[in-house]
């Protein structure tokens, strides 16, 4: 039994079958990559895991509990954090504040309110936020308005916000898209290091094969809403079905 078990999940948008009978099992403390051409349904699958969408059929179990019917904040509190394909950060807040909010969410739960003591007085959380910013090389940007940063920086910030929550399952939707090569490599190093140093399961959607093959323990190839193959990276590389799926895409484009 994996920490995440997706069984027979289907999702329709009107006439479009975005997901049909998807089965996926992600083992604990592994990194599972989901690849596939544009429009394959990768993001839709993640949406079904975090409560953004409810699948038409099938079940999604996390850590032995069903996530279906739970609201996004409850699912996060179960231990799932997600980085979105288009960065979702608190643009009007400073980078530092962006790091503090997930820390409060993890420590205090979904709606505990501290309205009297200042944010700055939470010494322990402040130092953790600063440490995390050091780890992702953003310490010098901590006073910046998050919205004024580059797309790559926004992604790194969003990932740091998820990592600081120490989730059991981290979902990454194209975390390196729009990043400079050097930042991509930093991200790979960071994820590797986190994977090795603590209990974390990662599911990553990525178009950059360098990232995929650097991180993934297993890979699922999704095309037109159905998983084509699932295997270890070495055997995915030369797999004829995979070539077909991607060639099909280039032929369309």
């Amino acid at each position: 039994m994996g920490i995440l078990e997706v069984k027979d999940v289907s999702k329709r948008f009107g006439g479009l079958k975005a997901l049909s009978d998807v089965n996926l099992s992600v083992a604990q403390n592994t990194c599972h990559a989901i690849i596939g051409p544009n429009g394959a349904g990768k993001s839709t699958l993640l949406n079904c895991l975090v409560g953004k969408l409810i699948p038409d059929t099938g079940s999604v179990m996390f850590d032995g509990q069903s996530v279906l019917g739970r609201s996004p904040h409850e699912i996060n509190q179960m231990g799932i954090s997600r980085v979105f394909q288009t960065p979702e950060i608190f643009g009007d807040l400073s980078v530092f504040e962006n790091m503090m909010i997930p820390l409060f969410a993890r420590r205090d739960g979904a709606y505990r309110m501290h309205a009297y003591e200042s944010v700055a007085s939470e010494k322990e959380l402040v130092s953790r936020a600063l440490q995390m910013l050091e780890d992702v090389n953003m310490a010098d940007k901590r006073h910046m308005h998050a919205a004024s940063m580059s797309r790559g920086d926004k992604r790194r910030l969003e990932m740091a916000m998820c990592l600081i929550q120490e989730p059991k399952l981290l979902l990454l939707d194209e975390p390196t898209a729009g990043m400079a090569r050097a930042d991509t490599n930093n991200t790979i190093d960071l994820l590797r290091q986190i994977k090795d140093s603590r209990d974390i399961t990662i599911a990553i959607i990525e178009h950059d094969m360098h990232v995929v093959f650097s991180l993934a323990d297993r890979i699922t190839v999704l095309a037109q809403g159905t998983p084509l193959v699932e295997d270890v990276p070495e055997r995915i590389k030369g797999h004829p079905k995979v070539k077909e799926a991607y060639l099909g895409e280039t032929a369309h484009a």
Partner: protein
Amino acid sequence: MFGLEKKDLNLLIIVALLTMLAPFILNPFPTDSALAQFNAGYPDLMQRFVIYGIFAIGFNILFGLTGYLSFGHAAFLGVGSYSAVWMFKLLSMNVLPALVLSVIIAGAFSWLIGFISLRRTGIYFSILTLAFAQMSFALAYSVLTPITNGETGLQITLDDPRILGMSATADGSIPVTNIFGLEMRAATDLVIGPWSFTFSVGYYLCALVMLVAFYLSIRIFRSPFGMMLRAIKSNQTRMNYTGLNPKPYTLAAFVISGMYAGLAGGLLACMDPLAGAERMQWTASGEVVLMTILGGAGTLIGPVLGAGMIKYFENIFSKINEATLHSWFDVLPDPMENGLVWVLEHFVGAGWHLTLGVIFMLVVTFLPGGLVEGGQRIGRLFNRTKAAKDDESAATKPAE
């Protein structure tokens, strides 16, 4: 000190000084001079400055931080006033229990309205609050006459029970509001040469309450709760996927701002113990929105400035009439005088709303951050000229 950062503490001290010295600051013109009509240092007006300041400070906690624009906050102001007057009727003329009840009732009432209205966001939320406020107004105006005394308004009378006080004073008149015997209307005049300054108990009570309200709002702004409220305004999606439920936070902000409104309403009744339904009308709700935006939504001091500005215009510009204008432009040739007066008279007296509208338009267009942004720009201008001078002196020094 007070658990505040240096910058916030300085702001608090400045506001405290300004409010404590307001009787001087707002009365710069000698009593008999022609400009005396621009003096704002009389108790009645100063009280309104700080009371509406409280109203706007509270409103800013909701609107400035979360971005939820309520068009119904006057309902809580009105509820506060009614609660206070009932306390004067039933318990005693002491303002303290009246204020406590105002805050509690307004808090409960805003919880109810907030709970329902916050099921929607954006314009639908605004419309819901507006609808509830208009319903409250209608209820107060007619349906609930036994409680609100309908269109006449709720007043204190000689045969109210006042179980802890007295129904009537020894000489048979209605007792006045007080705090442990110190009457709200008690005042002393200080005459220095041609100037005259009035210090009233009522104003200083309101000012102290405002300072406490302002202090608490600073703490809320700097707290994790305040940060969450700004996060709600910034990105509710991220909020949800970070494991936070925005609803309880917005509801808490709504109730807190409702309690501030109730406090302001209670104070209005303490200064003048009557409450009427018109206090709940939508124009009053709109006014606090204008105050907050004019001063600078989401800033600490902005709402207070906005409230002061609007109340100043309401009272001073509305008092200027055609005759005043004629006396000002007496020196001009008659046709010019008449023409000028003809134009300007539309902007004063009952037409003061027109002036306010023009100012509001200018501020929103050129200073989206309100008066506070104006202040910051001026500040930066000074800093830049200063910095430029420093540069110059630095550049010239080596040459010397």
